[in-house]
């Protein structure tokens, strides 16, 4: 009883002391806050170092998304490359949690230090692929998924990926 009473009184005293500490609040928008490069703001889709879109439409971001605000449809190009036929983020539902970025196996989806995306129309908060896709590589400059994957695409045949041996000649008798 007395212990808890003392604890409460200490708390009151501590809070009272805060009468003399300055406020932490940043007076946005007059004052702009510092946003770290890894700040979780507006989501973008990036391109690989060769300038092709990184997203392979694997759907993991959509599966990881807690408010289920990502929807996409896979398509496949002539050469076997997967890409999203459409890629939609409903930012009016997005909670900027960054789970999609963590789930992305190709570093395609990234969060940026930009949170100023207010709209008067909720419908304008729905971003399609053309709104999301940027021209750069974002935070990760060197990664190119198709160099690592075993899939043969235009300009990279079987065996030409990183750490890959030449295709096996089935008819060879050599060990």
């Amino acid at each position: 009883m007395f212990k808890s009473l003392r604890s409460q009184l200490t708390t009151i005293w501590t809070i009272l002391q805060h009468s003399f500490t300055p406020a932490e609040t940043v007076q946005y928008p007059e004052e702009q806050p510092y946003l770290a490069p890894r700040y979780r703001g507006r989501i973008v889709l990036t391109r690989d170092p060769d300038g092709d879109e990184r997203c392979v439409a694997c759907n993991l971001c959509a599966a990881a998304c807690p408010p289920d605000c990502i929807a996409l449809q896979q398509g496949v190009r002539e050469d076997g490359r997967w890409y999203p036929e459409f890629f939609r983020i409903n930012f009016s539902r997005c909670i900027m949690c960054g789970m999609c970025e963590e789930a992305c196996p190709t570093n395609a989806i990234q969060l940026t230090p930009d949170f100023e995306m207010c709209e008067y129309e909720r419908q304008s908060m729905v971003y399609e692929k053309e709104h999301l896709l940027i021209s750069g590589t974002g935070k990760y400059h060197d990664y190119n998924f198709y160099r690592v994957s075993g899939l043969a695409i235009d300009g990279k045949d079987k065996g030409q990926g990183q750490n890959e041996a030449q295709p096996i000649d089935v008819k060879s008798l050599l060990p």
Partner: protein
Amino acid sequence: MPVIHIDGQEYEVEAGQNILQACLSLGLDLPYFCWHPAMGSIGACRQCAVVQYLNPEDNRGRIVMGCMTPVMDGAIFSLNGDKASEFRRTIVESLMLNHPHDCPVCAEGGECHLQDMTVMVGHRDRQYRGKKNTHRNQYLGPLIHHEMNRCITCYRCTRFYNDYAGGTDLAAMAAHDHTYFGRHEEGVLQSEFAGNLVEVCPTGVFTDKSLMKGYTRKWDLQSAPSVCTGCAVGCNTLPGERYGKLKRVHNRFNAEVNGYFLCDRGRFGAAFVNSEKSLEYPGLRGEDGRFNALDHHSALMHMVHACHAEEGKNKVAGIGSPRASVEANYLLRLLVGAENFAPGFSDREQPLIELALALQQDSPALIPDIQTIESADAILILGEDLTNTAPRIALALRQSVRNKAYELAAELRLEAWQDAAIRNLAQDQRSPLFIASVADSRLDDIAEDRVALAPDDIARLGFAVAKLIGGENISELEPELQARAQAIATALQNAQRPLIISGTGCGNAAVMQAAAQIAQALCQAHNRAMLALAVPEANSLGQAMLTGPGAQSLAQLSKRAAAGKLDTLIILENDLYRRGPKASIDALLANVANVIVLDTLDNATLSASSLALPAASFAESEGTLVSMEGRAQRYYPVFVPRQERRASWIWLLAVMKESEREEVSELHSFDDITRACASDIPALSGITGAAPDAHFRNAGLKIPRQTHRYSGRTAMRADVSVHEPKQPVDEESPLAFSMEGLNRSQPGSLLPFVWAPGWNSNQSLHKFQSEVGGHLKGGTAGARLLLPATGTSASTATQPDATLAPSAPQQPGQWQMVPRYKIFGSDELSVHSPAIAELVDPGFIEISSDDARALGVNDGEGLVLNKPDNASQGELLTIAVATLEVRLNDSIAVGCAGYSVGLAGTEDIIAADKLVLSKADNWKRHKPQIIGSDGGGSTGGDHV
């Protein structure tokens, strides 16, 4: 039952199992790759290692393979001991050495057994620094995509393809870490069951090619239990939908029907749902002959108006469909009255199907499901090309002929799951399978004897066998056939579970009667005989049960129409141009003022209608189908039909409600219709048992159609409106269009998908089974409507005046037309699936090379089929029926010519007709075309 100890716990297990089966049945997680419940063990992948201890004092133990170790009373095992789990981890690590970094772009990702097992054993980092092996892929046809890099050499593909399904063109090639699974050269996989490789392969080597474009992960698919509409077998399927498109069809396990496997027609043929030909709005033919789109209500009012029967005059008739549900047909029958309702069979088919039903209803023999077929130890097929008319049964027969092998194994006390050992033991010894058919079939390689005969001769052979079994004399028969009949009769009599299979396939009633007689003779000889009769379409048998014998035929309707006694004709999901010669159907439709057609896809009949209503396909509606074994099975909507599409039963019920018909005042829901049908039609009284009604709840909850990971709910429709609509409510079934609910232990007819924690692939099925490979926990789907007749006295249907003497020889220069079916092409709807369409050939006629020489044609050239004009009595006057491409086939019965059923250019040919053949001049090969697609296909080609 033996008691075994696993990790210190005592378990009672089923005798005759191996440790892997026992563990999985007990609900314990033991990783495996090469073992498959339907294919047994070979111990190739080394993944299911456990530690076995000799006795309680033994604390070292030894590693054994779970799938190769039988359970023994008192045996002691460790599943999770360090030694076993470390061993399993290193096995996965070695399997993953060359596995590419592909999961994001792999169609197996998210339902990959390899992923599941890797996570289960805890392997994470590849320690090996060497380069990864790579392989070149092969083109394996339009159905299967090949990505060989991903292979872990478990040999499941070749074991299924070659050993289980009898394929010959997929093999393991090269040796050691060069092993390659593919064809000897690129090309279409020839087996009709190749699609099962998608589900059999534990990783992404073989994937569904039709899903490669517009791929959707398993967790994003909305799926519902469904039934295949490709043929009358009634395999249970799991179609999956996303964004309003049917994405794929997977197998839905049903221990008594399809087990683990589907045929390729069923798996890849359902994509017709997405066809551009599908109707979205009702159409009313205007003055100019073009269709104008209508809204739902005015279409309904037009139909109500057309159906309004004037007092005293009965001028409305309906044509049902053997591919529509029992409920829709029942409602149409109610709407027009039983005397004005035609079941929608062709005139040739109708007596055959009615006979098939009567024979099965009266036969004392067991009407087997597929599981029972697999237990048959002597089989006789009379005139049915099962691989093309009821493919899943052909696959089952490949298992039944192995009963001989199991007998041999039992003598040596080998367990049934010792797959490699039993195959080595039996070599080519098989249970006897006899085939009497019009030409070769895909089952010939496992047949003990095969004979090609004209349909009437097949019947004579069958009657002879029946007589022999009954102890009668068959001396009238030709001596060569006598020997054959004797061999067949002996084999069937010696068998414990003989099976006779026939069907409507060769278009001959006597063949089916012969089959029924054999079965009856066997039953009288105290043998447990089975009789299976194949029928053509998904609900053919149900339709025959609905109408009973003596229903209106198309010919009778045509007559009434010609007499001006029909004003309105309602055609339910039926393309009449596939049911008879074009001229007669044209005449029928021309004589009726209002032709109302309800159908899913645009077709020739629909184009000839005055009012077209868009009917929802099987994937968007609910219904009951009766399969060839008399099993009533329910299918459920996978997704909500788009635009104005409605289930046929909804259209018909709405019309009757609008007309304020007495009969439907008490019918409000789908279940009401099912119940009304069951009480009205005694033969269908069991259909309410096909599945639980809409009030069923699983632990108080509906059953979800979506997995708990279903993604994109708040973004899928955001392009249309950011305000999310309410999830559609399904009041007609116990399933919900949502991820909320419980998918566990419900009846097997309500299983929308399989998933269990840690088991994302379809291998999670064992969590839903009472024991691994056994029945589903909630019971097997479907209600059997046909039970063996009790008495052995045969009805008149099975006792025709059988004569064994050969009939008069055929007129020279004429050929008897015998139907030849194609798994890809003979079916009406599956050919509208893009993948299947690639495999459909143009129509053809098969003749022997001797006949070809006599006619002066070669393979690939054209042949005109002429009908002798009886009226003129002159041989020179003939009517050309069709012109088709010649295919040489020396196995075809003498005097017969096989025509491709359902393929372009063959619609005017009637089975058993005797036609005159002559070489076609200026022959140009048809482009592959589908009957009734644009009207172009039905005119018979572009020859001069």
